[in-house]
């Protein structure tokens, strides 16, 4: 929802009065679901609600969706990639590299149809969001500013209370569930003496002409600061950048919110001695003084406090008076603030107890891992404002991440209010390896929301079947049964994607030698994003989840498996990826998950009391895998088998085998067995 919000035109006062007096107005409009904001997250939720046939309404103060993008980013270049070519046809896989599309069933509503640019223009995003809302016919009330939200206790309500929304026209809306997708809309301002002299990112000129021959100081070290610098780098005398913490490069932290390489031109010019520079200091210790010529001087708040209040700017002590080599001793022509945004708490009544998080996540409302507010049941935060869950870790603050967390919230709601259990596919145990291989190779939600959303496999009794649940918020694992309506009585697997433990961080050398792991036995040391499978005999408790070992996304499992990182993120290698996975699953379940040809199953059926699961679930149900003509041919050629039926009389000639075993997906294990096969000395 745009912070650009142009003051709404209220129209002639007479009309307003007429509307206000209309008797219908005293009756609140009721909705099961109210969504605040028609930005990407709001639209995404609207899509799922609409698809499920729910009673919902989206409120948007601007006349079109995505108003944030009508103004931001100021320099119009989105840094979320629009990768149109991956060499793959798999639509789900391709979403891993499409950071702008929302989820829908309509393949026309993919962002690649809206822009050819790898870093697309923000106007294309506005156009895309508009089309998304229109094409899908989402119910959105535009030009509706929700000015106030309060609670109305009612025992009949789904959550024991209704959310009462009042818009700018005084219309009241009563909502059972409130989904807040208003993003971060309030520019972050740091209070220090002279902060009134600072121009904000939201309003500073973006015309480089206005900066010719100027000394510029930029406060902040995020992408907006660097984007601003990038735009004027070529015309300024120099740009200095000031912020409290050192720069974090996203390619070192693996966090997309940190400084992206596309914006880091100033790092280049700083390190290549081209007069630009970066400085670290807490802004709250500074003061900015305007001198008589209108130039800005950086000094310390401390000096300002020493001086009497009515002294002129020129008389105040500057750091260079003592230290004549003080870095920021030159006066600046402009100081620009690029310090990010905060969530707008102002419209929420205190009764909602919607508080901001700790110092770390102050700009975000405090929520649970299920995206529900800690203060009021039934209030969910979606989209960018929900990033406190995975701030600086995963992609939950960005379209390519929150499109999946929104879906997760919708699935929770479907179960909570409509008794629709979390979608799951029930499959026979023989499909276990395949279902994991399939997901880790294509699933986009797992890939983007690594460490936040994970797939869960719930085993059935005797481990003969399982249910596969996609993209469950794993911090809520202990509450899985109540949140999903599925039972986890017989053990479970969790499939998560992870970077190596010590691989990501602002000062990490991510290009060190030996960073890539290629051997399956070293898979647990994989550095790049790779699938990790946790096995639990019992569903972990809340305590276990909360007090899990440091740096572990989940409590300590019974067993763990890492699928070795892959340069191509293609985890389908039979020996390198699938076999070790199958062995892990077999050992967790204490069974044999190999695949057998029907001939082998036949033999087992007649020689053993029990059959392996593959034969039980395939062959014995008359769906066995028959070997092929060419395989037969091969056996005959290699004289393992005679091609005609054995006569039994001619002893010399019957050289048939007792059982030509063919196991699929069961390559030879390293070790003595393989050796004995290799040492096949057949010169006789």
């Amino acid at each position: 929802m745009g912070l650009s919000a142009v003051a709404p035109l209220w129209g002639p006062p007479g009309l307003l009065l007429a509307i206000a007096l209309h008797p219908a107005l005293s009756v609140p409009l009721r909705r099961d679901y109210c969504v605040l904001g028609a930005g990407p997250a709001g639209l995404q939720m609207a899509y799922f609600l609409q698809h499920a046939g729910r009673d919902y309404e989206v409120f948007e103060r601007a006349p079109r969706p995505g108003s944030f993008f009508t103004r931001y980013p100021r320099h119009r270049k989105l840094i979320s990639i629009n990768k149109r070519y991956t060499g793959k046809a798999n639509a789900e896989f391709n979403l891993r590299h499409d950071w702008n599309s929302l989820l829908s069933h309509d393949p026309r509503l993919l962002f690649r149809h809206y822009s050819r640019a790898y870093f697309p223009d923000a106007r294309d995003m506005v156009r895309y969001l508009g089309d998304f809302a229109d094409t899908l016919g989402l119910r959105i009330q535009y030009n509706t500013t929700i000015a106030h939200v309060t609670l109305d206790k009612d025992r009949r309500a789904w959550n024991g209370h209704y959310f009462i929304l009042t818009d700018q026209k005084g219309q009241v809306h009563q909502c059972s569930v409130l989904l807040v997708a208003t993003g971060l809309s309030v520019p972050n301002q740091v209070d220090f003496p002279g902060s009134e002299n600072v121009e904000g990112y939201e309003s500073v000129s973006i015309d480089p002409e206005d900066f010719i021959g100027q000394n510029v100081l930029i406060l902040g070290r995020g992408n907006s600061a660097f984007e601003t610098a990038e735009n004027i780098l070529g015309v300024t005398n120099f740009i200095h950048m000031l912020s409290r913490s050192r720069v974090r490069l996203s390619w070192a932290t693996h966090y997309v919110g940190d400084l992206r390489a596309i914006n880091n031109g100033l790092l280049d010019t700083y390190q290549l001695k081209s007069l630009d520079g970066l400085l670290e200091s807490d802004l709250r210790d500074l003061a900015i003084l305007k001198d008589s010529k209108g130039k800005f001087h950086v000094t310390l708040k401390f000096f300002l406090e020493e001086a009497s209040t009515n002294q002129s700017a020129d008389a105040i002590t500057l750091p260079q008076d003592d230290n004549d080599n003080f870095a920021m001793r030159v006066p600046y022509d402009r100081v620009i603030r690029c310090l990010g945004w905060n969530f707008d708490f102002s419209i929420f009544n205190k009764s909602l107890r919607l508080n901001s998080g700790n110092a770390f996540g102050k700009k975000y409302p405090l929520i649970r891992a299920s995206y529900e507010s800690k203060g009021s049941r039934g209030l969910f935060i979606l989209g960018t404002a929900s990033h406190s869950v995975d701030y600086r870790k995963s992609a939950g603050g960005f379209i390519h991440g929150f499109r999946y967390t929104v879906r997760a919230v919708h699935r929770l709601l479907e179960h909570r209010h409509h008794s629709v259990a979390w979608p799951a596919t029930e499959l026979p145990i023989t499909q276990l390896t395949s279902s994991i291989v399939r997901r880790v190779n294509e699933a986009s939600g797992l890939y983007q929301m690594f460490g936040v959303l994970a797939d869960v496999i719930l085993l059935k009794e005797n481990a003969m079947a399982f249910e596969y649940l996609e993209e469950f918020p794993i911090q809520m694992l202990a509450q899985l049964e109540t949140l999903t309506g599925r039972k986890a009585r017989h053990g479970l697997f969790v499939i998560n994607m992870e970077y190596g433990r010590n691989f990501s961080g602002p000062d990490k050398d991510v290009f060190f030698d030996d960073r890539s792991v290629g051997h399956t036995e070293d898979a647990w040391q994989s550095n790049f994003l790779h699938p990790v499978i946790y096995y639990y005999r019992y569903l972990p408790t809340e305590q276990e989840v909360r007090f899990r070992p440091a740096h572990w996304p989940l409590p300590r499992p019974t067993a763990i498996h890492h699928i070795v990182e892959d340069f191509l993120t293609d985890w389908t290698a039979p020996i390198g990826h699938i076999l070790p996975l199958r062995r892990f699953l077999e050992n967790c379940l204490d069974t044999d998950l190999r695949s057998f040809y029907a001939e082998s199953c036949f033999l087992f059926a007649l020689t053993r009391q029990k059959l392996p699961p593959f034969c039980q679930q395939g062959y014995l149900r008359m769906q066995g895998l028959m070997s092929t003509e060419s395989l037969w041919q091969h056996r005959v050629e290699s004289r393992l088998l005679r091609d005609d039926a054995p006569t039994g009389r001619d002893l010399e000639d019957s050289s048939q085998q007792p059982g030509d075993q063919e196991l699929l997906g069961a390559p030879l294990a390293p070790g003595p067995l393989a050796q004995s096969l290799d040492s096949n000395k057949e010169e006789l």
Partner: protein
Amino acid sequence: MSSGFNVFRVGISFVIMCSFYMPTVDSLLELSPQKYFSTLQPGKASLAYFCQADSPRTSVFLEELNEAVRPLQDYGISVAKVNCVKEEISRYCGKEKDLMKAYLFKGNVLLREFPTDTLFDVNAIVAHVLFALLFNEVKYITNVEDLQNIENALKGKANIIFSYVRAIGIPEHRAVMEAAFVYGTTYQFVLTTEIALLENIGSEDVEYAHLYFFHCKLVLDLTQQCRRTLMEQPLTTLNIHLFIKTMKAPLLVCAFGGYSVPKKGYKFQLRTKAWLLAFWELSGKRFAIFIFKKSIDRKRKLPLELTVELTEETFNATVMASDSIVLFYAGWQAVSMAFLQSYIDVAVQLKGTSTMLLTRINCADWSDVCTKQNVTEFPIVKMYKKGENPVSYAGMLGTKDLLKFIQLNRISYPVNITSIQEAEEYLSGELYKDLISYSSVSVLGLFSPTMTTAKEDFSEAGNYLKGYVITGIYSEEDVLLLSNKYAASLPGLLLARHTEGKIESIPLANTHAEDIVQIVTDALLEMFPEITVENLPSYFRLQKPLLILFSDSSINPQYKKAILTLVKQKYLDSLTPSPINSPFTSGITPNAIPPASPLPIIGPTILPAQEWKPPLPAYDFLSMMDAATSQHSTRKIPQCMKETDVQENDKEQHEDKSAVRKEPIETLRIKHWNRSNWFKEVN
């Protein structure tokens, strides 16, 4: 290739050498000592019998020696009779006639001398000579401790072939020595003539020679005993050879596509009997299955062009435009790819004859299409016909059954029969002549026109059975003509068994669709069926004990008659009797059958009840992670202890710290991907 066959190679090369440089010698060479010693070649073994020139030209010994020439020559050992003449005095020439001896030389080194009475016959000659030559390969032992020591020394390294013979020089000894000549470097041969040793092993019948295979190579735990397999056949060269071949096969059932195999593969030249014996023995004690590594080359191209590859764009249009079979598969899944071959075989067989379009879609690429078609596992075959709901194929994933399904789907289910004449043609198999080879039974539902519910139930059942059994419906006014003719009630079923030319009738009364399906599927079962890979599950489903008649050839009509009599007299109601005779089944002869029993036999067998456990352990990453963490923390201890000399070595201490910090990365054991390492790993 290990040195396992070096001896053998020498043998080969020698034989070749012989045939080129020497005339093949079948009879004994007679030479003078000087001449004899000049023929000795380095490394070559030679047996010479030195005798006085005036000794008789024939004796029992010479006859036997003469006979040994050929077998010894096969092992590269030349044989000569050396006539000691007075002019050439050799120390090998004894002084008295009866003290003459045979000598074994290697090159010109004397290995052994044999008094002629030890070489009492051809077997003794061959046995003794090889025994002397294979001194290292065959360990002769006399007590249990020796055996134990050898066994312990070879655990995890090599397998042992242990044999007991009653005496040296007897035919069994020769057989063992001949085997040792071939396998001596691959296996450790151990020989004894002490009965006590054999008794110690636990053999019951110690009167005969015994040969055991000790599986020591796979034993990694030294406290564990090597498993032993007794060869239960008489010790002959051929039997030992076959037995060792059998033992060479891996213990576990395991084969996998993609591994290349020498073109020759295994060359078992087993006689059926030997084979049954081997298996019989094994099935009791271990489940040995001969495997061969399937050498389906991963890069081998299938003639995929015979099936249409669908995409997201073409899927709907294709299945709407024509009747299609769609194979949903995943390119990375082994089962899918194995079935794809059968599928292509179906396409090859149907080429140009079918209106059904054979298509496939790779769900690894077109995930969404598969999900939309409700495909969540692979491989899945579905049939799309115009105006009908897609049908999932539920039969065996093989060429034959899928072909049957496709062919039988050329007609509708059930077929609407409209005249008595047509019904008769239908029942005789005339109507669908080309289809009855796929469905040996045709079912005809008889209903009077008013029986709408019964007809609906039958239609539903027919629809369910489509692709598996031909079903038809007759419900004209004159239906009584048919029901009277075949003594069928209305509503009722007629079952035409085309192979037997019989028509049965089954009454239907308020029978629901699923019960009709059950009746028909039960009717497809035979009384005394020959069990095959394809039909076993349908008999298993009856959950009755199977009485299996094992036969090594086609069933003798006598047996068949006897069984059928039992069946008809309801003696076997709780059993399903069936003969078994297929290329696979010779291996499942139950271990209760004595090897000499003539087939066929019926015998009780208790099947092993072992569970299907993980074939191999998995990587224990959790322990590895724990080990790395604990290693990390123990590292800190020496650092603390150094604090005493912090003052002096401040700088050093600093460096130590940084070294410690680096440690985790060094302990990571991440392998380099350089060329030299790579090849080491692979080899």
